[in-house]
């Protein structure tokens, strides 16, 4: 029995009603005011929620993150990143201005409002919620993720509805590969870049010709990450995949998979599982004595993993990630972000929040650069090559598949005795530049589709 819950809104109900009234009020304004408000926008036939969604003094963003289910912890973290970004954009915070220099307050002077729905990491739930935000709230941009199955579904919705989808956490090669769309963009690292970044680190640390067991969640994210990592290690290091344990999202127990791995003769356990599945499979691997006998590898980092399983399990473990907070030592924007986030929420942000914040900051930059919310103009703004600031140094959008060219961070788990404070779980081993990690733009079959 799958439980399905209606969307919930953050903030108070009253706040939501106010938002609704605000949007409705904007629509009901006298014709003269409306045409004046739209005057800044170029003259085009209506498309998607444009110009209806930008006719008031605010614009609406639809956010769907998992707040229940296997990925709930990561979804909440992601949501906090969005909230901080919206707060900063609306206030014209110095951090946002570092990334989007033209920002004053809001985006093109319009305040950002938002609604939040629980996707439970299920594509159906996410699509229904976003459809509602598009129809009822005239959302000008939709976002959310923490499951590539959701990201791919929202890609399709965005292209159909002609509303920009700024993708949340999604690790599948398909999101900007075979399932890419003109109306979707992705900031974070993914299977192929993770594999090409962590692969050399593994070969350097452990050498060639090793035997590895994979644990793979049974959907687009799991399959593409496992494929990319295995291909790298096989081709470049002569490693062998001795078993691949594919399991459903939210499996209640991993004992039978671990039993197979115990009997496989593997020396490495490459765990692609994510969210609570990763927590449970790592803990049970320890119970079965597979860890630390086998070396654990996390090719696609899971926010909060170390906090949940403890440093005894993550000690010495290599992982590829989007961001780790100790990068603040070398990257000034990262430092600002970590301080602001910690001040508001009381803990160091993980990469889910970092990704969420960066997505919104880069979206604000793209809209300000376009000078309009008109979707084809915003998309063309994303596609026009220019250097951008980020928490991890200079980055750039790739116009052919709407993937950000950004570094992948290789981290290694610290031993409990080496931790300088209770959140000092990982040591940044290497910041691998992004350009060399990516496949050719058309290698995964990306065809972006139409602007209108």
């Amino acid at each position, binding site marked *: 029995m799958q439980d399905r819950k209606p969307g919930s809104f953050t903030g108070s109900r009253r706040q939501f009603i106010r938002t609704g009234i605000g949007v409705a009020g904007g629509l009901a304004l006298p014709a003269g005011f409306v045409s004046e408000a739209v005057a800044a926008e170029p003259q085009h036939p209506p498309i998607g929620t444009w110009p209806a969604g930008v006719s008031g003094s605010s614009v609406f963003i639809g956010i769907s993150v998992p707040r*229940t289910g296997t990925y709930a912890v990561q979804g909440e973290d992601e949501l906090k990143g969005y909230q901080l970004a919206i707060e900063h954009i609306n206030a014209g915070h110095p951090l946002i201005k570092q990334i989007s220099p033209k920002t004053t307050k809001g985006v093109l002077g319009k305040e950002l409002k938002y609604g939040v729905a629980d996707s439970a990491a299920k594509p159906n739930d996410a699509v229904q919620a976003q459809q509602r935000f598009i129809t009822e709230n005239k959302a000008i941009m939709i976002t959310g993720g923490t499951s590539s199955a959701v990201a791919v579904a929202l890609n399709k919705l965005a292209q159909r509805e002609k509303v920009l989808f700024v993708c949340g956490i999604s690790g599948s090669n398909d999101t900007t590969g075979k399932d890419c769309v003109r109306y979707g963009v992705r900031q974070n690292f993914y299977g192929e870049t993770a594999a090409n970044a962590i692969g050399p680190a593994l070969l350097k640390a452990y050498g060639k010709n090793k035997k590895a067991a994979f644990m793979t969640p049974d959907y687009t994210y799991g399959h593409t990450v496992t494929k990319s990592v295995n291909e790298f290690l096989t081709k470049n290091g002569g490693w062998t995949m001795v078993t*691949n344990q594919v399991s459903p999202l939210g499996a209640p127990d991993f*004992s*039978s998979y671990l039993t197979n791995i115990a*009997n496989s003769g593997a020396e490495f356990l490459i765990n692609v599982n994510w969210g*609570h599945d990763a927590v449970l499979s790592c803990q049970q691997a320890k119970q079965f004595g597979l860890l630390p006998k086998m070396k654990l590898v996390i090719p696609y980092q899971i926010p909060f993993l170390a906090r949940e399983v403890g440093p005894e399990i993550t000690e010495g473990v290599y992982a590829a990630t989007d961001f780790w907070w100790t990068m603040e030592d070398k990257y000034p924007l990262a430092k600002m972000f970590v301080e602001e986030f910690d001040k508001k929420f009381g803990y160091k942000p993980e990469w889910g929040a970092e990704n969420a914040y960066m997505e919104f900051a880069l979206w604000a930059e793209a809209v300000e650069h376009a000078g309009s919310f008109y979707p084809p103009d915003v998309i063309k703004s994303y596609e026009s090559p220019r250097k951008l600031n980020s928490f991890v140094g200079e980055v750039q959008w790739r116009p052919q598949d709407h993937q950000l060219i950004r570094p992948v961070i290789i981290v290694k788990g610290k031993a409990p005795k080496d931790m300088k404070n209770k959140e000092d779980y990982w040591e940044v081993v290497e910041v691998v530049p992004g350009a060399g990690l990516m496949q050719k733009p058309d290698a995964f079959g990306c065809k972006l589709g139409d602007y209108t």
Partner: protein
Amino acid sequence: MITWSNFLSQLFNGLAQGALLALISSGLTIIYGTLGVLNLAHGAMFMIGGYAGYVAFQYTGSFVLAVLAGTLFMLVVGVVMERVIIRHFYSRPGEDQLLVTFGLSIVFVEIVRFFFSSQSKTVAAPAALSGITNLGVMFYPTYRLAVVGIVAVALLALFIVLYRTRLGMIVRAGIEDSVMVDSLGIDVYRVFMVVFGIGAMAAGFAGIVNAPVVSLSPDMGEAILVQTFVVVVIGGVGSFPGAVVGGLIAGEIISLTSMVNPGYAYVMLFAAMVLVLLVRPRGLFGAKGRE
């Protein structure tokens, strides 16, 4: 990966997995068999048992007290639930019962999430039972071995209550025909309360016994609930031996299928359920004509 040692390992693992499923399913099947209420909150009750035990464990550090706390807390919750809500639904249509128990499960899950967040919690196994045991063909977590024993004892206790006591006789009679039991002058509603309490207690007990094996999360009951339904269908609705045998069969199906193709382990469970429904709709141990 079919090798002799892996086969033996999986055979044993299936037994261990199945034992726990049997325990949870027995609570579900007793409630459904006696009260006619399909309790969709059973998975959430399993989860609450784990969290209640976790709280006790945090305060006392004693696993035995944690097990007692998880079990007794769920007994109390079960009795209160029955008195306040469930009993008003005995004569209502089945859909109403599904909706109210489904609603309760959402409430339970969100209450736990509110107090404990979605981040997982762990309960350590008692020191004597932690570590790994060499079974010859494989190393197996000692606590999981102990769970097989603990569950066997718990199921035996349930068996004695159901088959060797007057209460058990009434309950079993109630499963067959509650109207007749009522007309014999037995306060069947009182029995219902006790039965619901016992079912809830079994779920709570399973929840805390299972806690050291998994990490607790508010959503953990959802996947378990689906599996226990499959177990009950395979074993036969309302049948206690059916729940036990069904649980063991389910555990073996998951384990042995994973050896051939891990991707199909859980799918095969449903395939088995479909097969049973086609060939023997009342389940392996279900009596003919029973709802």
